């Protein structure tokens, strides 16, 4: 049986003038429905490139991405993205940012008031309903990411793609948001693919951790199952042996076997 989302022997190279850089080489990965998969790897190895390929924002050089056995090669709301830098439209309010997505995705299928309700519902899900009339410039970085998440969730995507969603946040805000994401995933059972460079975050949130080798021509070095029961609580986990073992494995991969090489 083929998995829900399948990245099938994907190669990706960029051409700049006559120079060609091979970023991804033969990346194959299956993600099951409802699964939470993290992709971890050193900076510049091609994580964003891989996520953008799944999102359809970048074309593959070779290979294919299949979602429910259908090839996807252009962007669409069935693969909603939460971008690293939130990407909210600054001229729209928090509500309107989410509403724009809701209106576009459900235009023919839901009435005006249903779309209004759905917008509010998603803002409540990320605890941002109180700021619905503010503009992005008036809210904090963590709040912006929450709104970005609400916008993505509101599209009812088949796969939720998160590109280092908490990368730019301080540790406390980050922990808060991780808890929110866990709770939402628990509640809605989304299929999630998340990029991170934070080992604790990867172990805490994921069912599986995909570790990428360094570029150029990065590929999947190892896939680690995280057999921790859900719901997970960060305080209890810090002394859990499975948690510590998984954490150790990822650290070994990143810092011993594939330690980051400067330059290149």
């Amino acid at each position, binding site marked *: 049986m083929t998995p829900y989302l399948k990245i099938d022997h994907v190669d990706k190279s960029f051409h700049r003038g006559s120079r060609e850089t091979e970023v991804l080489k033969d990346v194959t990965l299956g993600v099951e429905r409802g699964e939470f998969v993290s992709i971890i790897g050193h900076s510049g190895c091609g994580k964003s490139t891989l996520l953008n390929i799944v*999102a359809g924002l970048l074309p593959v050089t070779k290979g294919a991405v299949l979602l429910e056995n259908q090839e996807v090669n252009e*962007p669409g709301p069935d*693969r909603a993205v939460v971008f690293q830098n939130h990407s909210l439209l600054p001229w729209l309010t928090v509500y309107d940012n989410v509403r*724009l997505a809701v209106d576009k995705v459900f235009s023919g299928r839901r009435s005006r008031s249903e779309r209004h309700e759905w917008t509010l519902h998603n803002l409540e899900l990320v605890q941002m309903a109180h700021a619905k009339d503010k503009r992005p410039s008036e809210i904090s970085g963590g709040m912006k990411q929450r709104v970005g998440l609400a916008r993505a969730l509101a599209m009812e995507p088949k796969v939720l793609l998160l590109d280092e969603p908490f990368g730019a946040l301080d540790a406390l805000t980050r922990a808060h948001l991780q808890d929110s994401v866990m709770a939402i995933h628990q509640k809605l059972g989304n299929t999630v693919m998340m990029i991170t460079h934070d080992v604790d975050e990867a172990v805490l949130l994921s069912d599986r951790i995909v570790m990428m080798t360094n570029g150029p021509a990065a590929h999947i070095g190892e896939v680690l199952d995280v057999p921790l029961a859900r719901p997970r609580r960060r305080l209890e986990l810090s002394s859990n042996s499975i948690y510590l073992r998984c954490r150790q494995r990822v650290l070994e991969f990143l810092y011993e076997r594939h330690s980051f090489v400067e330059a290149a």
Partner: protein
Amino acid sequence: MTMPALKAETPAVAPARLTADVVKLSAPKPGFVGARLMPALKSAAARIIPPLVTLTLLLVVWQLLCNRPGATLPPPTKIWSEAYDLIIDPFFVAGPQDIGLGWRVLTSLQRVAIGYGLAGIIGIILGTLIGQSMWAMRGLDPIFQVLRTISPLAWLPISLAAFRDSQPSAIFVIFITSVWPIIINTAVGIRNIPQDYRNVAAVLRLNHLEFFWKIMIPSAAPYIFTGLRIGIGLSWLAIVAAEMLTGGVGIGFFIWDAWNSSRIPDIVVALAYIGLVGFVLDRIVAAIGNLATHGTAAN
């Protein structure tokens, strides 16, 4: 003769105003409203007093320079006495050609409204088209950069040759003077739409029309308004040149006419009107820009 009168007058005005302000500020201190009113008044005073002081100083220097025998330009006192009616009442009507400068400004503003309105519409459309294509941008930008330096006066003969009629030529001169910064800034704004917004649009599958209205225009709006603001200044600059053609009752033609009949004080008053109206126009466009872009403008 006027010398002692003025010397007695100007120094007397400035200190009087200053002391009046000091009294006004210190008086409401004990009151309840004082706590809130005081800082507001203080900041208003801080903004109003320095320009008043410099203005007074300028007038004094001007008076001293132009009051000497052999001076070619009239001093402020002479302007005040000779152009008194023009200064005091902008909206008098004493005959078909003898009307207040307010009326003349309004006539000129109509002309500018047409020329600038066209420049705005066409500039934004052209800028949007050019901004779509890197090649159009690279090919046309140098041409625009050259054309935008051409003065309104220089466009006059070309304009007349093309239209063979003074009215459309005048409008064209205003249009052609102000359209370049609008085109250039719009194009730059369109080119600079962040990839993030394009990605959002792509994920949402916005069609071309939706992309235009919901992403492109709002994202480029701060740039567009910068262009519009430069444009309004330029189109108002072109009014004198434009009305040298048309004659009639505009403020631009008034200056040309006053020059031909050597009424220098009238010209000075008209210049003050033009300057003030230009300033107000600039502020209006800036304010509209601020409103329309919700203060996200130009960062």
